[in-house]
């Protein structure tokens, strides 16, 4: 029970955070000058009376708090209203777009984590200077080369010069680019952490006892390195948002990012709000889970 209390606290804090973010998103979407009716009015030449009628039909003339409560109740049931532009249920559009984004995100998460931990483990156990140089290079790459720049260069090289893949619409290049970027962001931390973990007194004792390297790695080093692996995984997952968004736009992938941006440009607020809500809540959920798990497996966090 002692151990579970911090976990429960973390979950409660996550819930509060998600609620607060959704509320902020909702109100930000409402304060903007000019709503979708104005845009449609400009485009379709609606009269003032027609605009007022449309606003009443959409509920845009009611107090904001009331709008938020209604919207929240419906959103909890999976109903995000209708797209004002396409006159389709927003939830349907999200469900349609989600697989692309999920594939992109999970694929690059796998590549990133696999590459980072693979390289760090190899560099630590082989004590390879070459691998450490590769790790440094990857780190500099992720700091200096934004993913969308790498994407453009990738398109030029692989599609225009080499003529390899049908680049637009394909997930291969975006997954590799975001994966490399993710790996570069965390690989140095993993490497430093492992380097410290293998120097810990109990690991040296294990080595002095003549245990096999595998046993040392699995039984003595892994438990020490697991928390950081967890935290870094959470970090990579939160960092995926910007990467997937730009890649979706650049490679013409019809995911949630494309949906959201098109909606921003078209002032299709129900869609913007739903997309932001879904992404933000997913992130908070991930981070809360990471936090809770971290507290569970690493008693040092809560002290």
């Amino acid at each position: 029970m002692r151990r579970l209390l911090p976990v429960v606290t973390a979950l409660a804090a996550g819930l509060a955070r998600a609620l607060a973010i959704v509320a902020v998103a909702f109100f930000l979407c409402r304060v903007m000058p000019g709503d979708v009716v104005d845009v449609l009015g400009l485009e379709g030449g609606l009269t003032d009376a027609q605009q007022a009628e449309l606003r009443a039909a959409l509920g845009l003339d009611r107090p904001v708090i009331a709008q938020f409560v209604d919207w929240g109740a419906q959103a909890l049931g999976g109903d995000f209203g209708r797209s004002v532009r396409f006159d389709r249920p927003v939830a349907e559009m999200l469900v349609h777009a989600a697989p692309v984004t999920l594939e992109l995100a999970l694929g690059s998460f796998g590549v990133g984590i696999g590459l980072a931990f693979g390289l760090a483990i190899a560099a630590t156990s082989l004590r390879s200077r070459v691998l450490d140089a590769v790790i440094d290079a990857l780190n500099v790459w992720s700091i200096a080369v934004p993913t969308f720049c790498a994407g453009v260069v990738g398109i030029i090289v692989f599609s225009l010069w080499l003529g390899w893949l049908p680049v637009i619409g394909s997930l291969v290049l975006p997954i590799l680019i975001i994966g490399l970027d993710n790996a570069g962001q965390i690989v140095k931390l993993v490497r430093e952490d492992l380097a410290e973990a293998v120097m810990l007194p109990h690991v040296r004792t294990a080595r002095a006892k003549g245990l096999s390297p595998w046993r040392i790695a699995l039984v003595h080093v892994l438990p020490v390195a697991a928390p950081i692996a967890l935290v870094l995984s959470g970090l990579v997952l939160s960092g995926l948002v910007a990467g997937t968004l730009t890649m979706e736009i650049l490679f013409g992938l019809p995911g949630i990012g494309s949906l959201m941006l098109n909606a921003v440009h078209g002032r299709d607020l129900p869609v913007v709000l739903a997309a932001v809500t879904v992404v933000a809540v997913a992130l908070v959920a991930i981070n809360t889970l990471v936090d809770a798990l971290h507290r569970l497996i690493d008693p040092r966090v809560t002290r």
Partner: protein
Amino acid sequence: MSPAGTMASGGGRRMAPGTAAALVVVGAIVLGAVAAPWLTDLSPLDQDLGGLNRGPSAEHLLGTDVLGRDILARLLWGARTTLMVGTLGTLLAFALGAGVGLAAIVFGRLTETLWFAVIDLVRALPATLLGVLLIVALGSGMAPVVIALGLSYAPLVALVVRTAHAREAARDYVAAAASFGGGRLHVLVHHILPNLAGTLVTQAAIVLPRCIVTESVLSFLGLGSSPDEPTWGRMIADASRFIEKAPHAILAPIVALVVLTTALSILGGRLRRALDPTRAAVAPAEPSAAILAGEGALS
């Protein structure tokens, strides 16, 4: 003594070639941005309809894009916007993270808890989502981008400053200053702040390149400045629709951006090593400290 040894001692007379090159690059880009009106008499917006999508020539040193706009002029004028927005975003992040953060800490327990709850909330939203929301709320233009950058990076600054402040506040000199009757504000400004300067400068060197990249991402996504204000991100976005027809138009801003961020991060790393030698030691139980210290996520 090895060259590395000279570097580590901080005040070495000779600079490593990498640092010197990075300084020259950053200096040149800043100078180019400031002197844009005098360096080129071509407008970044005027279209040369007789010379659409041309390679480099005497008239257009870097050629023209598909709309016939001079790429060099757009790069130079774009550097102005990119650098200005990035700098303003960094300043705002420091005002909110370090300024308001320290004030809240000094003022009392309640304000500290409240302000850091806000920071915690903002931290949960990625810069791009914040950008989307702010641009929806405030309309497009430079202000929402600066606010989005400032808000996105304020948590990074705030948490690092809070940790550094807690470290300093526990030291004897603070207790001594307080026992001499120094008020909390006096102790903060005259005793603690000078000892935080290194951390703050280091943090600025980390945040600035990130603000520049995030600004480029936002304007690449069409969330940044208006079309008649060229930025590097917007140039990349515009040209990405014509990659096949005009690869030179997209490579120019990409090279510029990558060169600038590389140079800035080299300088940042150098500054960090010179000013903050303690940073290297991070307990394994606190990976977040290392992340916050600036190794982690960028775009």
